[in-house]
């Protein structure tokens, strides 16, 4: 950087200016992606500061105000236990994002390391590993997740594990195909010639070079995980009452009172849709930025 002589304060201004410029460029080039990112940020803030922006307790049952239609006191109405729906939707964002981020990060990171290792070692290890992945990939996500729930039982932590496991082979498969190409590049041979250990070559030299497909998978996984968590909770096999979760809010009362109190069913579903929609928009834009081959098709 040319501004070495300038004091620390102005260097900070320069770097924050650069971030600002990047954000403006991203918005100009990918307005839909920027909208998606905006919704994600709002959701994140709502999830983090849920305690400060809500006035009701999400688990407080209030028989005085059951099935109240949307009004000033309860902008999205209340459910059949008198709980405020807006509060539960906001706290539900916390559950959805926790499950979404944790399972997407852990699942794709394990998949990343395994996929690169499989490509790096090749030979018999790769062959056996790929057949094992084939077995996992022979099931729809929800079927695998259901099988894991059958073993571990329900509850938030178990749901995270149930969603993480099916993500591993998916990410490993995609990352492996990119890593196969990287293995052929001479710098990997050079690293081996320097006597570096296998784990160092995999983690320090190969993993950073498959970041583009990895990040694309990661954003797609967050959306998928939110959807899966909602489905499992809706089936009664995910997050359990009284924890506020969007899928759970659509179960029971939402169906029973569908006609007389449609707001119970409408708003949590809208929250799921908006959340997944935002991650998909952002993921699409990220793919365009990171994968120039796909840019021409957009």
């Amino acid at each position, binding site marked *: 950087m040319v501004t070495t002589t300038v004091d620390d304060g102005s260097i900070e201004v320069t770097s924050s200016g650069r971030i600002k410029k990047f954000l403006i460029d991203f918005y100009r080039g990918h307005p839909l992606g920027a909208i998606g990112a905006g919704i994600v940020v709002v959701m994140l803030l709502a999830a983090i500061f849920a305690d400060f922006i809500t006035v009701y307790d999400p688990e407080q049952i209030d028989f005085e105000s059951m099935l109240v239609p949307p009004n000033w006191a309860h902008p999205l109405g209340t459910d059949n236990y008198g709980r405020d729906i807006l509060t539960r939707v906001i706290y539900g964002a916390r559950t959805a994002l926790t499950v979404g981020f944790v399972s997407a990060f852990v699942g794709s990171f394990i998949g990343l390391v395994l996929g690169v290792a499989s490509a790096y070692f090749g030979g018999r290890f790769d062959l056996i590993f790929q057949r094992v992945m084939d077995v996992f990939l*022979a*099931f*729809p996500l929800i079927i695998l997740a*259901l099988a894991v729930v059958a073993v571990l039982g329900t509850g938030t932590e178990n749901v995270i594990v149930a969603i993480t496991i099916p993500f591993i082979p998916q990410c490993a498969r995609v990352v492996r195909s990119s890593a196969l190409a990287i293995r052929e590049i001479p710098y990997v041979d050079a690293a081996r010639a320097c006597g570096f250990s296998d784990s160092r070559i995999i983690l320090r030299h190969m993993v950073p070079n498959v970041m583009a497909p990895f990040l694309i998978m990661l954003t797609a996984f967050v959306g998928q995980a939110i*959807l899966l968590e909602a489905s499992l909770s809706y089936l009664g096999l995910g997050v359990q009452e009284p924890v506020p979760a969007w899928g759970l809010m659509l179960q029971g009362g939402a*169906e029973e009172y569908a*006609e007389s109190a449609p707001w119970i069913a*409408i708003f949590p579903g809208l929250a799921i849709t908006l959340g997944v929609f935002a991650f*998909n928009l952002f993921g699409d834009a990220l793919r365009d930025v990171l994968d120039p081959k796909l840019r021409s098709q957009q």
Partner: protein
Amino acid sequence: MYKYVVNRVLLMIPTLLGAAVLVFLVLRLAPGDVCEMRMAGTGLFADPEAIAICQDNLGLNDPKIVQFGRFIGGYFTADLGISMWTAQPISHEIEVRFKLSLQLALMATFLSVLIAIPLGTISAVKQNTWMDYAVRTFSIAGIAMPSFWLGILIILGLLISTQAWFGTPWMPPIYYVPLFEDPMGNLSQLIWPALATGYRYAAVSTRMTRSALLEVLREDYIRTAHAKGLLEKLIIRRHALKNAMLPVVTVIGIEFAFLMGGLVVTEQVFNLNGLGKLFVEAVLNHDYNMTQQLVMLVALIFIITNFLVDLLYAWLDPRIRYA
């Protein structure tokens, strides 16, 4: 080609065997079993002796290898065993539900193709116009919307609109009648869940059609077709769409195999007694036999669909030859 088909069919065996081992072991890791579930599930005192007798009867105390042998051996004698929960033969339990789920899956596929190909084509041909943006929003929303929520909204819409127009609220019938016995009754029950699952499915295929077609439309032979004065309609239909179908067929195939997963939740919303619901019940009841057989069925459908898609490739694109 013959050799390729034989090879592929033989390769299915290790995958299926792996799936069998996986599901067998995973289920045995679970704490509790069907006997405890049946007796202690009521909340009353459960006699440990009665539980032990029940476990003996169901062969749950046999060594794991014997249980696994029984599971795999059943395929050679065409005996899928009995459900641990209902004590009915599994083949019977699956058979009565298979028709409903298959019909639903086929209807959803048909609806989605009917929606996806025209929309995807319009979106690609009118790229970056308001029509394109509308179709893209429609398809991204379809991917984001949980099919069970769409199901709830459909039921809600039906209740409210029939109440407003006819004075009495109407709900789709709950009992399944075969298509050929009572076509109206059958369709009035299944069209709604087919729409709910088909929309998501259509969203994925629409996006694929659009991007595949956009790529094809940039090819030289399309410019040649324009240069020789062919009608736009003919170029799209005969030259472009045909060549863009390859990735679309893959997506349709893969999604068909995944429909089973979508059905798990949709059947719950519409209260349909299909394979998805059977699966959820089997998992909840720790019915090992039933869960194993259903998982194997899903894996088999998935593997066969993938295989058929690969064969369809060669038929669609004569350049692809499997040796």
